[in-house]
């Protein structure tokens, strides 16, 4: 059986591997670490608009963590991600498998399928506004009103439905991303194990379960983790379509942060938000990584 050994194997390499990772590490330290450390610095001070005031210790954090609105926005973002990402993953994997099976005119279909991810999020937001706006939207008038679905309700204005509409738009936009990444992954899989398995008489279902899934697991785990982190930060669509309403039905974390920064100019709270969210993600990613490593052998 083909050895599924994917652990690091080379030994005695000396300084070579460190030379390989050095440029990336250095770049990240300068470019990402510096602003973040500065943000931590800001979060520990009283901020008067853009001027750094006195040392505030953890006051900003206490205020943030005691702010019900903050927790509500975390909740909304969590619900959003919990609905959107599994759908994107399932549909994306399905699509990648279909493409990998071989479709005719694939070179035409793949770019077209990929269009939603290729569009700027701000344009996507406007596009779906044109589609879903109450009464004058294309889908609102031609599909919903014509067939009497959801009569007298506008999806984006409904506290119950607005979040689902936003989930739908996110799935529309990001499924192709998952699909392309997994399709590239599937195309890169080595053929040898499959040939060996075919010689041994394995069925395609068995090959899928025993070869494809484990081989693809690292990539799948990475894509899911990345989508989880990125979907949490969604902003453009919510801002343009519902502005966090109706009420607080769609006020995601990014919207809360946007208002804190640009409407209220409360930089102390905003910086504390950045740090708190970072910590939450860090803990989560760590747990995800360890879990995926142990149970799924993904890492």
């Amino acid at each position, binding site marked *: 059986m083909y050895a599924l050994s994917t652990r690091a194997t080379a030994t005695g390499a000396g300084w070579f591997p460190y030379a390989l990772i050095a440029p990336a590490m250095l770049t990240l330290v300068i470019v990402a670490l510096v602003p973040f450390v500065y943000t931590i610095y800001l979060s520990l001070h009283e901020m008067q608009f853009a001027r750094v005031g006195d040392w505030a210790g953890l006051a900003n954090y206490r205020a943030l963590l005691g702010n019900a609105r903050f927790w509500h926005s975390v909740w909304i973002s969590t619900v959003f991600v919990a609905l959107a990402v599994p759908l994107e993953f399932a549909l994306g994997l399905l699509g990648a498998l279909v493409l990998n099976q071989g479709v005719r005119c694939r070179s035409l279909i793949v770019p077209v399928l990929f269009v939603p991810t290729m569009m700027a999020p701000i344009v996507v937001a406007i596009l779906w506004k044109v589609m879903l*706006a109450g009464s*004058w939207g294309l889908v609102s008038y031609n599909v919903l009103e014509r067939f009497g679905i959801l009569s007298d309700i506008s999806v984006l204005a409904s506290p119950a439905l607005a979040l689902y509409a936003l989930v739908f738009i996110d799935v529309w936009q990001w499924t192709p991303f998952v699909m392309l990444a997994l399709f590239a992954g599937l195309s890169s899989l080595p053929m040898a194990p499959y040939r060996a398995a075919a010689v041994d008489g394995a069925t395609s279902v068995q090959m899928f379960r025993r070869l494809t899934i484990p081989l693809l697991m690292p990539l799948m785990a990475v894509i899911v983790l990345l989508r989880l982190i990125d979907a949490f930060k969604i902003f453009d669509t919510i801002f343009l379509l519902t*502005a966090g*309403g*109706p*009420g*607080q039905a769609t006020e995601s974390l990014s919207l809360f942060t946007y208002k804190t920064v640009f*409407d209220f100019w409360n930089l102390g709270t905003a910086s504390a938000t950045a740090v708190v969210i970072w910590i939450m993600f860090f803990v989560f990613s760590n747990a995800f990584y360890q879990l995926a490593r142990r149970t799924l052998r993904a890492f």
Partner: protein
Amino acid sequence: MRARLPLLAVLLSIAMVTSAEAWSYKDAAKPYAGQSITILDEITPLQETMKTLVPEFVKETGIQVDYQLLNHFEVISKGQADMLSGRGAYDGVMVHSPQLGLLLQADVVRPIDDLLGNKTISNPDLDLKDVIQPAWDSVAKFKGKTYGLLDWNYNVVYWARGDVLNHPDEKAAFKKRYNYDLAPAKTLQQMRDIAEFFTRKKGEKLAGQPLESDFYGVVLEGIKGGTTFWTLWNVFIKNSGGDVFDAEGRPTIDRPENVAGLKLWAEMWKFAPPGQAEYSLIDVPTVMGNGIAAQTLAWSDFVLGIDQPGKSKYAGKFVYAGSPAGKSGTRSAETEPSMIVISKHSKKAEATYLFLQWLVDKQTQKRFFEVSKGAGVPIRESTWSLGELKQSRFAALYDAMRETLKNGRAKPKAPKIFEVMDVMSGLVQEVALGRKTAEQGLKEGQEKVLAICKKCTL
């Protein structure tokens, strides 16, 4: 020698008198010619028109002007970021009246009193008494200082479908039901009646024709944020005798008058399209322009964009009136007097002031209305009598604007006003959607606003 002194004196005084009368931008700008200033303003077709005139200023004064235009949110976020961070890349920044509380508290706006009083650079023909009031005073004057000139006088007018309101069948039916004549609403109560009257389902008749889809009596902004809450506050709440703050700037959200005003606003939602809770100031003109609703309260510069041939099927069929009155004696309208302020970090205050002056100058304003073919939001009383306005297709709209502007004031100077507005905006949405009663919503509002500021105005 002796004899020449009196002659010299006479010559000098003649020279002084003639030079005082010959004030010109060119002369005043001489010490600053060659300087470059950067101005940030908000983009709408009005500013785009103004931009075409800016080269005339540059030519006359030799001051280079980089007149940058950004959209509403960006003007606020980038403009404030620039001023508050001390970067000072912009010499002049356009600010909306609610921004002033924060900017004054942060002390990043340069007062212009010294420049106004400087006879060398101040145009004696500026005629500031001609500037529309109370717009200018309410936005620019604070604690004895002046912070800018009035640049853009946005205002909300009553806008309705004239073809539908004037139809004989409709007029007869309305009179029968409500006992008064159907006409553009003068009061909020009338607006409500008209809204109720015209809300019809697909298939029913409207102005003699069967409707191909649902029609609504009114459409208003309802999205969280935006200018939804300002209109509710300045039109419905104030005209019901209430207010968000008292005279000392303390929150009085749950006053009975406020409850009445909010109830009236919420009632309008019954006669509005289902999407109202997502409608911003861009949806409202789209809905009106596509013939989905009968009335609205909308920003007049929007109307300028829609009521034109080629922009809407119903162009030419609209009627306008000033912002409606309430039951109480006070009259209030929603307006947004905006000005370009000089940043405290600007090193070219005089050059910037010359440009800002030029913008509001009688000549420039007249030129503006010529070039825009009579489309704009006047800042001067004398503009109303310009031929371009009187003969333009928007003559009725201008009457409506004039009426509105008599009763419009800038927002209070409260540094945390955006937080207050944000909280209240969500709450009143819930009231309008029937998820809370007006009393509950406003009581909750009072608690939340008190947590933001006990005394909110500067």
